[in-house]
């Protein structure tokens, strides 16, 4: 792939003059943080997107990959993070779906099983051909996905963050399988942010950052430091003006939180930390290391498998969102479109969802004062600079930045004792980002305990008074003076290459 540039219609430059070469028969790791452009690059290779500029050459020939079918015909197969499997069908059925061995319209079931078993044997990917997908573990499901691509004649396999959902044992199995595939002449491209794993399995590694390729090296030559530096170093350092924090007592206490998902994946392995009033406690980390689950558990949207959460000495573990909010917790969610706002509802309606049931908005327990709602909304719109002509405007008409301001207006105006902010500046413009940062500091200075979870390293480093790093469901480091750190150092922890001995 040469000179690949991809610019999305909203102006985001996902790939910037990328040169990427993969040699036949190698395992090539493509690493980078979230948003580095690696997934986009592979989408271009698989035909899910078209490059704005640049060309792709396969075995010396220039090719145009207009859609996944073309990619498959060219021998490129992709295993996505979200599996595309039919739960009620068996392994064999899923593998042959769309290309079934048939006799005049009737499925040849024995042949399907035979094909599956042959493929499995040939590539060392152990699967139970007759088992239903919804009864087999995640590791096997992934092997089914791989076999699907092999059945369609894939020579080049792209694996997108394959170890995200696997247990350590399953990860080992996967690596063995990948090695077997390569021995059989396949080429594998491995997208990941887990450097340790890349070093274990890849031959060469390409590092991407901010849409550019930072370099390609053989794994043997790459030290952890070099890799981290390439992945994480930034040219412009974000500086936020903030007065020194005045830390008080611990307000939010999290102890030994564990969470195991339905598929058996252990997302949280015993997370403990405290957030004090008047401080911003940041959690840095690449997305997918348990942060989403952590935030949802803290805010009552998910039930923990074990552990406790306390808010000013009130136990709030596994309580309803309302109870948690009443105890003094606010939550800026990571996906505002999903649950931060209700698009068809007005700004005013969106703002009062956490307080509509009490005076002054509700009198006598059953009469809602719409006048009060309107007034509060207008005041908040003024205070938070929400650009809209009227509080009755439906939120779906607002820009991303304005929508986030609605969320902030709501969550910050409650004078919370603790604020959990997850990816607060995702997808919003510079102006709104700066505004959000200022508000976070402001609420901190009013005595709130702020937990900031962000995959944006510069943001979390600039804002945090204390900084923790999360990797694979654990807190692997806590720093009391983040100002003295470099991004590369933090990067090492984020990528699982280093961890502190004793984490407090």
């Amino acid at each position: 792939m040469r000179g690949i540039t991809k610019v999305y219609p909203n102006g985001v430059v996902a790939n910037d003059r990328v040169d990427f070469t993969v040699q036949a028969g190698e395992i090539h790791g493509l690493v980078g943080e979230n948003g580095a452009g690696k997934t986009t690059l592979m989408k271009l290779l698989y035909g899910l997107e078209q490059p704005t500029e640049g060309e792709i050459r396969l075995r010396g020939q220039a090719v145009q990959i207009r859609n996944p079918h073309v990619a498959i015909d060219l021998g490129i197969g992709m295993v996505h993070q979200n599996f595309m499997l039919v739960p009620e069908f068996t392994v064999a059925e899923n593998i042959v779906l769309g290309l079934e061995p048939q006799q005049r319209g009737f499925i040849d079931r024995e042949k399907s099983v035979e094909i599956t078993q042959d493929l499995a044997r040939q590539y060392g990917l152990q699967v139970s051909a007759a088992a239903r997908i919804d009864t087999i573990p995640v590791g096997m499901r992934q092997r089914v996905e791989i076999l699907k691509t092999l059945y369609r004649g894939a020579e080049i396999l792209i694996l997108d963050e394959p170890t995200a959902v696997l247990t350590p044992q399953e990860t080992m199995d996967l690596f063995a399988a990948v090695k077997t595939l390569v021995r059989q002449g396949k080429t594998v491209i491995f997208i990941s942010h887990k450097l340790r794993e890349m070093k274990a399995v890849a031959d060469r590694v390409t590092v991407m950052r901010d849409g550019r390729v930072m370099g390609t090296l053989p794994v043997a030559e790459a030290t952890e430091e070099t890799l981290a530096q390439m992945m994480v170093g930034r040219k412009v350092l974000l500086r936020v003006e903030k007065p020194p924090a005045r830390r008080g007592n611990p307000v939010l206490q999290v102890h030994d939180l564990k969470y195991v998902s339905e598929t058996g994946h252990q997302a949280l392995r015993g997370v403990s930390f405290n957030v004090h009033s008047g401080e911003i406690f940041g959690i840095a980390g690449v997305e997918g290391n348990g942060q989403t689950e952590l935030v949802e558990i803290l805010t009552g949207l998910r039930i923990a498998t074990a552990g406790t959460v306390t808010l000013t000495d009130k136990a709030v573990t596994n309580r309803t969102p309302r109870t948690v909010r009443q105890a003094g917790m606010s939550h800026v969610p990571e996906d505002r479109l999903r649950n931060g706002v209700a698009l068809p509802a007005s700004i005013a309606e969106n703002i009062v969802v956490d307080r509509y049931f009490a005076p002054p908005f509700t009198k006598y327990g059953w009469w809602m004062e719409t006048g009060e709602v309107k007034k509060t909304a207008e005041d908040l719109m003024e205070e938070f600079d929400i650009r809209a002509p009227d509080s009755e405007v439906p939120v779906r008409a607002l820009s991303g930045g304005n929508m986030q301001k609605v969320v902030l207006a709501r969550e910050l105006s409650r004078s919370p004792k603790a604020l959990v902010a997850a990816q607060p500046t995702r997808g919003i413009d510079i102006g709104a980002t700066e505004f959000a940062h200022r508000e976070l500091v402001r609420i901190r200075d009013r005595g709130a305990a702020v937990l900031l979870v962000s995959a944006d390293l510069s943001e979390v480093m600039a804002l945090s008074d204390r900084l923790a790093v999360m990797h694979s469901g654990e807190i692997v480091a806590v720093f009391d003076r983040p100002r003295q750190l470099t991004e590369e150092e933090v990067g090492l922890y984020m990528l699982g290459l280093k961890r502190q001995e004793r984490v407090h």
Partner: protein
Amino acid sequence: MPLGEVLAGIFSVTLAAGVLRVTTPILLPALGGLISDLAGVINIALEGTMLLAAFVGVVVSAYTHSAWLGLAAALAAAAIFSLILAFVHLDLKADLILAGIAMNFLASGGTVFVMYSLTGDKGTSSELASLTMPYVHVPILQSIPVLGPILSGQNLIVYVAFLMVALVWVFLYRTVWGMHLRAVGANPDAAATAGIDVRRTRYQALVLSGLLAGLGGVHMSMGYLQLFQRDMTAGRGFIALAAVFLGGRHPVGTMFAALLFGAADALANQLGSLRIPPQYVQMIPYVVTVVALAAYAIAQQRAVMQRQRRIQVRQAASD
């Protein structure tokens, strides 16, 4: 009258034969509903489709003096009707339920309207000399004691209906087409990435379900009865959907569920002589469906919770 005699009178061979006859107009649309549900586009307009087919069959057979032409026209009408529903939902993005309700209204009003214009009668088509589908007498089966009158002498469509259960089963689980259909309903994204045209498959599913419902409608006006009455389907299109869910969304289960509804219907009428209000028996299948629905939903929830607990226990053990 001694109880024994009464019971014998009720649970008679005539009743059993009647059950098969009564089940057919439930079973056929139920199989249609099953196919459409498995493809992810549950056909709410089965009721209207049946009604339309019942009507077209009567009219065409009366004017062409051929029952078979009537059947053909009825099935064609059912197919076109379903195509309209499919188009409105799949291409015009209308809500499936509301579009289905609209089509039912269309059929209900349209059939009576045309009947009135043709015969001047708003209630029935008795003016028209419509024909019926043939009755089949199977020589070997006929002579079996007890079962004979049940298995032989039924209308052709009754046999076809039960045969359809097997055919639908083979279609769904042994053909490529059926597998694609089930994939589209279970995980349309997976089907799409496997190269299956989701929209086209759903179109096909709706037309197939319409054809089956249409056949059920033809049975009603050209077998069960010998004329068309306004709204003669009397909710069977919806009972059919209940039968699909009660039968666990599987052809054989659907058949048994349809039989349950049919048996209750047939039995209810007979129970008058025992001074048990027929409504009790009529209610049974519906209550059963709701209970089954609830039980299924509760069981699902329990299963999820159990899985969570098992994982937690394993977790605690390994710590």
